């Protein structure tokens, strides 16, 4: 992409962005000092990444468990291929659904649609999922609720082992 920053500066900035902005008035100035560039060049580069769709979202990233959102379930469903897009889009817009993805079935894995639902506790999440399935007339489709019982690791992805953007 067209940027005032060298490839090395872009990679360094990328790693710093993965760790987040400093909690000071001018966080891009902090980045600029780290990579020997200017605040303006850094901001323009980050805006460029945003415009090109490199970010899913940009803002505060919370650790939901620390905020009392203690239950999370991965709802997996086997939905007919002909209507999986329609169902996916409907569930993706449903309240309380944080993520909704289509993934491949495998010989020992029969489900192709995945939703993440978070909530304060397990009972509330379970009730919400049952309601969702009813509303979308999906109770009869094969499905399974995979509650998480422990988080071993929770952080953003690191893409930049060798690659660049």
């Amino acid at each position, binding site marked *: 992409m067209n940027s005032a920053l060298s490839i090395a500066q872009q990679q360094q900035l990328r790693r710093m962005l993965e760790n987040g902005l400093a*909690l000071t008035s001018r966080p891009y100035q902090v980045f600029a000092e780290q990579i020997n560039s200017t605040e303006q060049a850094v901001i323009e580069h980050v805006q460029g990444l945003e415009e090109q769709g490199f970010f899913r979202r940009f803002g505060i990233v919370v650790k939901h468990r620390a905020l009392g959102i203690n239950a999370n379930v991965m709802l997996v469903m086997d939905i007919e291929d002909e209507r999986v897009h329609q169902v996916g889009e409907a569930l993706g817009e449903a309240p309380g659904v944080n993520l909704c*993805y289509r993934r491949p079935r495998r010989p020992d894995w029969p489900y192709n649609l995945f939703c993440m639902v978070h909530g304060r506790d397990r009972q509330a999440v379970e009730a919400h999922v049952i309601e969702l399935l009813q509303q979308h007339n999906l109770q009869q489709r094969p499905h399974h609720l*995979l509650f998480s019982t422990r988080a071993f690791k929770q952080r953003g992805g690191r893409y930049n082992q060798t690659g660049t953007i």
Partner: protein
Amino acid sequence: MDDLCLRMLDRFQHDLPICAAPYQAMADELGCTEDDILQRLTLLNQRKALSRVGPVFEHSRAGASTLVALAVPEARIEEVAAQINAFDEVNHNYLREHNWNLWFVLTGPSREHLDQTLEKIEQLTGLTPLDLPMLTAYQIDLGFALGKNSQVPT
């Protein structure tokens, strides 16, 4: 957590302006001072409730990613979870209630890199991973609703 903190979280888990003084921009929109914002973010950080302020990268543009599951025998959970955690490519490693019980996301610069990582995981653990790359995303990720208009089931 006070009302301003909840409003801040509900409004700015997405669409934070990319500008020289982003915390001032937040303050302007929420009708408070930049210090009010920085104080609350610092407090969230001290309480280990803040991961960061910044981008959540789009996997499909920013590199490759896949969801992986392992069927780990009960007695080996701790050992295998630690082995998996040690990979820099791994994030969001969870134990879930299913025969496929260890679920994690792999991210890397390319699909080839992920294939190599999956091979290493199989060699290291002796377990065959279930590899489930995303085919379609149906939802725009807006973070977690926490405030009055929360859609999080309580």
